[in-house]
């Protein structure tokens, strides 16, 4: 898919109707027999269009498993889960991979930039996966790098960038193909407080749009304030969903 086509798809997308993500009774287990672990125990969660949802909770509570199921990289055992109306369970492996490539952007905790590619080339990878030619993809990558304030670092290797800069490159990579859902796993945990806030401001500023949704898994209480809503998870279940202020009030009491 070329950039032009990609842009055209976005322009001709129907207006946001219904929910961006709808999960109901989602369960997921790992292992077998005595070592079987129930990671998700009937999770119900809805994410609206234009919403930044944070998933918070202690380690091992199922946050990462839930975003993996939402992003279609893990199969659920039971329940319903649709993303922009599409149910991964109804898609073949190849179709699911293709759908994911076109519609979901990822930001990882450890950035997962390819160390031998320059920043611009890393940003261009999703477009190349979608079939865009290298030169056009890299050219477009420079434009997106400019939106995250790294226009002058396009030729730098990841090892030549600071942690904050690498995460900004990862954000640019997650945005370049204009996905509708952006999934972030602990995007600020490897960063100091100031850089973490910068990254969150950037995410909120450049990633949010009315036809998009953003899901962020985090432990970092310092960034809860950026969320529209926060879903608290514990032991494989969503125990509460509310605004950051509501969450703070609950914690205060």
């Amino acid at each position, binding site marked *: 898919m070329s950039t032009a086509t990609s842009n055209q798809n976005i322009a001709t997308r129907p207006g946001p109707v219904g929910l961006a993500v709808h999960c109901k009774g989602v369960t997921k287990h790992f292992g077998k027999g005595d070592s079987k672990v129930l990671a998700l125990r009937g999770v119900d969660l809805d994410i609206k269009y234009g919403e930044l949802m944070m998933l918070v909770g202690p380690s091992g509570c199922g946050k990462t498993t839930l*975003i993996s199921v939402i992003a279609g990289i893990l199969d659920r055992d039971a329940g319903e889960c649709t993303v922009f109306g599409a149910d991964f369970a109804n898609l073949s492996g190849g179709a699911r991979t293709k759908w994911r490539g076109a519609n979901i952007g990822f930001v990882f905790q450890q950035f997962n930039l*390819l160390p031998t590619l320059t920043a611009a080339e890393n940003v261009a990878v999703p477009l190349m996966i979608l079939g865009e030619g290298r030169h056009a993809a890299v050219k477009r990558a420079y434009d997106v790098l400019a939106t995250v304030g790294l226009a002058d670092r396009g030729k730098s290797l990841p090892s030549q960038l600071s942690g904050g800069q690498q995460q900004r490159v990862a954000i640019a990579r997650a945005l370049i193909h204009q996905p509708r859902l952006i999934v972030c796993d602990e995007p600020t945990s490897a960063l100091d407080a100031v850089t973490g806030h910068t990254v969150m401001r950037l995410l909120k500023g450049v990633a949010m749009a009315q036809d998009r949704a953003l899901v962020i898994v985090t432990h970092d209480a310092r960034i809860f304030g950026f969320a529209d809503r926060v879903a608290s998870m514990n032991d494989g279940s969503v125990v509460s969903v509310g605004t950051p202020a509501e969450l703070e009030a609950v914690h205060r009491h």
Partner: protein
Amino acid sequence: MNFVALKMLVGDRGKYFGIVLGIAFAAMLITQQSSIFVGLMTRTFGFITDTGYPDIWVMDPKVQFIDDTKPMQDIRLYRVRGVEGVRSAVPLYKGILRARLPNGTFQNCNVIGLDDATLTGGPPKMIQGEIAYLRRADGVIVDKVGAEGRLARPVLDDQGKPVLDEQGKPLPPIPLKVGDVLEINDKRAIVVGICQVQRTFQSQPVIYTTYSRAINFAPRERRLMSFICVDAATNANDPQTPEAKAANIQALCDRIEQRTGLLALPGKAFSWKTVMYFIKFTGIPINFGIAVVLGFLVGTAIAGQTFYQFTSDNIKQFGAIKAMGTSNSRLLGMIVLQAVVVGLVGYGLGIGAAAGFGYITKGSELAFRLLPETLLVTGVAIALICVLASMLALVKVVRVEPAIVFK
């Protein structure tokens, strides 16, 4: 994504060179050892190639290879000449005789006696003199390597000690030259020419002379004729395609064997019989085979281990691009591309090094013959190494869960 695959590969220079060098080492060892083996085997029938002329070699049925001469009585020659389809049949003497050099030392030489009348089957290339000079009294032609090597005369002083140059090194020996006199089995021989022949397996100096002179040099025996060289008669009406010609020659061989009880083989078949003898009855192929197999195994181990390590180190990156929408078939394509690139580069470097080795050692005692077939065999071996090396990596990448990126 091919670009990404290549950048991932060459970006990690240490591992890239590790894989390439592993493959290059294997390619070099396989090519070099195979070429030396082929070179050695070629030397075993070097005399047959040099003689060239006869369509058919006739010999005692017990002969196993070219140097395994079982002398026949001269009467056999006439029987062969009587077989229908034989245009000409000439005797050939081949034997190891001891030559006494001008300085009094002795050297075993391979003496070839050519038919007096036709002098057919002589050396393929004359450097000095002509083959016809063999008709001069006591005339012999000596091969260049022998003349400059084992038959060369060391420079000695009156006390028999080597004469030294200004740097204290012994002066180089003086090559045997036209006009020098040898003694072969106490019979006088005069060098009338210097020729060039293929090196033989035994690497002894080769001395050509006439058949009658050769049997005069040889110790008196009842049987002295080593081979009968037969030229097949051709009929203008016979089909002249190579296949038809070969069939005619084979038919003539069968007739000669039937009528004379001797063994008759076309030159190519005799060469193969010689090679097969060395393959079957000497440890040479095993020794070279072990080196080739070792090269293959070491190359596979180095390349496979490094390739697997390379993939393991990048597994999260592969997981990330898988999560971002890269299909398994695309990932397979990326790994295969990486394997093909390192395979081609390693193969090129390896055969280049082997060819360089062959070029440097050209003209030396070392047998080295690089055949296109050897390059093909090495190519197949390297392809196999790449397949084996990338197999584990392929499995690892295909099995990787994209969810690994969240761990």
